[in-house]
């Protein structure tokens, strides 16, 4: 038996919730970033599922673009994190509070 739309959406929802919880709870910037990516992936999965079950390819093509952009974004994001670490010697968000005051 092939899984239905509901199954795909459930997986996407669970992935999104895990990602969101990670963003909320973890202290490491790298982990938070990975969780953000997880949330992005969850939405992509939902998009592909909708596309498949609608019988149109629009969503699938859209996802290609999202993945491309996400790849570029990861490159920039990781570079920022590396630069941040070099500058501050930490990537714990609790200690990155220079904007306060």
């Amino acid at each position, binding site marked *: 038996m092939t899984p239905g739309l509901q199954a795909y959406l459930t997986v996407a929802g669970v992935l999104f919730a895990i990602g969101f919880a990670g*963003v*909320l709870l973890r202290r490491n910037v790298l982990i*938070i970033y990975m969780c953000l990516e997880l949330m992005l992936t969850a939405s992509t999965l939902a998009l592909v599922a909708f596309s498949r079950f609608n019988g149109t390819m629009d969503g699938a093509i859209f996802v290609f673009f999202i993945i491309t952009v996400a790849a570029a974004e990861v490159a920039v994001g990781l570079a920022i994190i590396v630069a941040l670490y070099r500058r501050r010697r930490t990537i714990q*968000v*609790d200690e*990155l*509070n*220079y*904007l*306060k*005051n």
Partner: protein
Amino acid sequence: MNLPVIFTIILLLPLISAAVITLFLRRSGKLAECASVGSGFLIMGLSLYVLLTWNGQTFHQSWEWLRFGNFSYSMGYLFDNQASLMLLVVSFVAGWIQLFSVGYMDEDEAQGRFFGGLSIFMFSMLGIVLADNLVMLFVFWELVGFSSYMLIAHYYKTDFANMASRKAFIVNRIGDFGFVVGIVWCYHHYGTLDLQTLANIITAHPDLLGTGAAVGIGLLIMCGFVGKSAQFPIQVWLTDAMAGPTPVSALIHAATMVAAGIYLMARVFFLLPPFTQEWIMWSGAGMTAFAGLCALGQTDIKKSLAYSTLSHLGYMATALGLGYPGLALFHMAMHACFKATLFLGAGSVIHACHHEQDIYKMGGLLRRMPITAITFAIASLSICAMPFFAGYYSKDSIISAAYLMGANHGAVFYGVYVLVFVGAVCTSLYMGRLFFVVFLGQPRSEHAEHAHESSAFMTIPLIILGFLSLTAGWVVYGWTWDNGHMIWLLPASCVQVFIGDFNLIAKQVESSSLGHPLEILDIVLGVAAIIATYFFYGRARTGDPLAAKAPGVYHLLERHGWFDDFYDWYVAKVQQPVCEMFGSFDKLFIEFGCVWGTGLATGLTGSLLKRAYVGSLHAYVYWFFAGVILFWAYAVGWL
């Protein structure tokens, strides 16, 4: 050359002269003199050329300058009989007075500034003469106000000149405010500001003048005249304006600028409903008698002449109010001749006495300054309307016109006649007083003792204008020459504007039973008044005999009816508190409420929002999440 080109040259010449003087010749007084006087005489020549070649047809041409929606603002020239007379007076008198200034200002340090000011005044005044619509006229109207202000303040190192210039400017603003409101209302009501179109509208629909709006417009435009010609109730600036150099008093505050108010009224005469005319008539007649009396209470020679100017502007206003704008312009022209002579004579005396203006420090100048004394005497007789002098023809016609008004249109107008008659007797009194005190008797000071006749720069204009004070009025006899282009000493085109009114009055005087006897009575009383002043003032050693005999009356005349004191009280005790009341509204509502209030509210909001800025990434995520929920709730309609 065609007319618009010549008019443009006439108008721009003094502007160019002023610009050159201001930019290059401020330090070189002699060159500035040349530029100003040269342009003055060029204007005189060009004006005479225009007046002699003009075919008598009203010339009107305008060019669009600005357009706002439906309102198009044009500039142009309207040259008719009124403008031709005014152009002659302005260009002719101004040329000679500028020449006189060369002599008068010879020891001044700021000749460049002075002659630049005279040039800019000429530009503004010629603009008023030639303007074809009310907006253009108003622009130049303000420019003469500015140049008057600038020239009064020539001796800016004295407090008095500074205050006088500001007073002149501010008091004129009051009149001009009414004027500008009148112009706007005129446009709203009649749909145009072009003088010729307005005249056509009124001619086609005379009933338009019966409305309340027409009365309002007439009264408001009259405000401009009241301010500039120093009529009741804002006449107070003119006597203080004498703080300026004497040629300025002669040119601006006697011969031309103050007469511009009369010219304006003649120009828009068709716009004035009967009520406005009556107002002008009564205020003018009142001013004639009142200022004539006040002139007796001044020891400053120029102030006394300034009151005389007020009085004679009153005559012109009376003529306007009686319905004879032509007579008003006739008197304006004659007045320009003899009052310019009187002021220049006074200037010559003041210059010779090292800027002493108190007549009781002069005396015995007849032998020392014969040319000045004789021209002054001629102009005095002219202003007193002695027969065959220029003033006789214009002033006596106005007095007769007032009498005829009373005879034909109800006894109440005899009041006007009495007032102008009193004014005429006063003229003889104060002119006799001035002449006998200044030129006869013994010198009362060192300076008067050593005075001597002024240079040719000053005597030549005196002789020419003095000659005109004697003869200019003979134009009414209609002796023509140069194939009818000239009538006596005036170009024929300038005579048209007043000769009709003059002949009409002369004919009515012939047919009325009391006309001639009253004229003779006027002359006899005038002569008697002059003789009386000889015995009353002529032998005074020090101080004014009237001040010694009747100090109360003299004080009233000296303070000219406490007008200034009343205005001082009004400004300090009434206007100031009202201003402070409005000022406190500004402080409370605008400054504290609006300006400070906005700042405070923004600052408070900022310091509140700063609390949300905790520096923890997770907190921001919660904020973000809360925001998303809020949006979602709004989107599904829960909020």
